[in-house]
């Protein structure tokens, strides 16, 4: 059993990737055969809700490149640069500026 801090840090770090989670995290989850699908709900939530926030902040970019392309870019971006502030509205502005 991982300590509270190790468990949360591992859980959090693994939300950013699409790789299969390591055995030692999966061992922490109750598994009826669907533990990975259940963990992936949190991965998906992380990507979608932060991607939605980017879409709200950059409607013009989204309009120019289209919904599908924006979503793909947002997924990559959110994984590479996860939110560095506690407030969603202020999350990614400065980094986006640098990318431009």
């Amino acid at each position, binding site marked *: 059993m991982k300590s509270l801090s190790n468990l*949360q840090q591992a859980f959090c770090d693994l939300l950013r990737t699409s790789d299969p989670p390591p055995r030692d995290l999966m061992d922490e989850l109750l598994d009826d055969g*669907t533990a990975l699908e*259940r963990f992936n709900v949190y991965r998906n939530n*992380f990507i979608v809700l932060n991607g939605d926030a980017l879409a709200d902040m950059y409607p013009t970019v989204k309009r120019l490149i289209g919904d599908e392309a924006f979503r793909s870019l947002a997924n990559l971006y959110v994984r590479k640069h*996860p*939110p*560095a502030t506690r407030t969603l509205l202020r*999350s990614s502005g400065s980094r986006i500026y640098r990318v431009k």
Partner: protein
Amino acid sequence: MGYLERIRRDYPISLHSVGTSLGSHLPLDRDHLGALKGLVDRFEPGIVSEHLSWSHGREWYTHDLLPLRYTEDALNKVVEHVDQVQEALQRKILIENPSTYLQFRDSEMTEQAFLVEAARRSGAGLLLDINNVYVSCCNHDWDIEAYLSAIPANLVGEIHLAGHTVQAMSRGTLRLDDHGSAVCDEVWKLYKNCIETLGPVPTLIERDSNIPEFAELLGESIIADQVLTAACSKYEVAV
């Protein structure tokens, strides 16, 4: 904020926080707590609430509400953080039960036992989200009656209702809290039963996305009003 001030002049409001990360192993963010205190002082809400969850690691934030392992050390951490929030805000808060999609193998107690104990030790109340109870109980095959009957009426200061979606898995289905659909019949039934037991409790219907026509929203709020009004007459509370 201008709108909110005008609304606050005429109505009591409930402030629902998502960012304090009560269940995190990391210390609370003092700047965030200070900003929250600023809001509370400015709007003087009737109720302040936060979720039983955690949301960040050491260097970055998920902005999601992540599930807790229900152990004694996690309980101590939650109680410590609720104490700190209540101390900073100089008021009691309510803790909301989450929708969860997975369970940790080494949890030592049920979610309802964890919630009630966290409230008792910290002096906080509970925000009972009936959709979340339904979603989590269905997702983990928990007994809904056992969950709800473990919640003491005197701890419940607010109720939330919301919709959810059902997603297929390789085995069975998973219910996902989405705040983007109508409250389902089962949740309405549980709500009516809860209000009969608890008496009239301030109720909020959450809808953040996929907002329907106003008439549909109004329709849901009328149903909740009728349930509350019936309870008010039973408990002889002035409406």
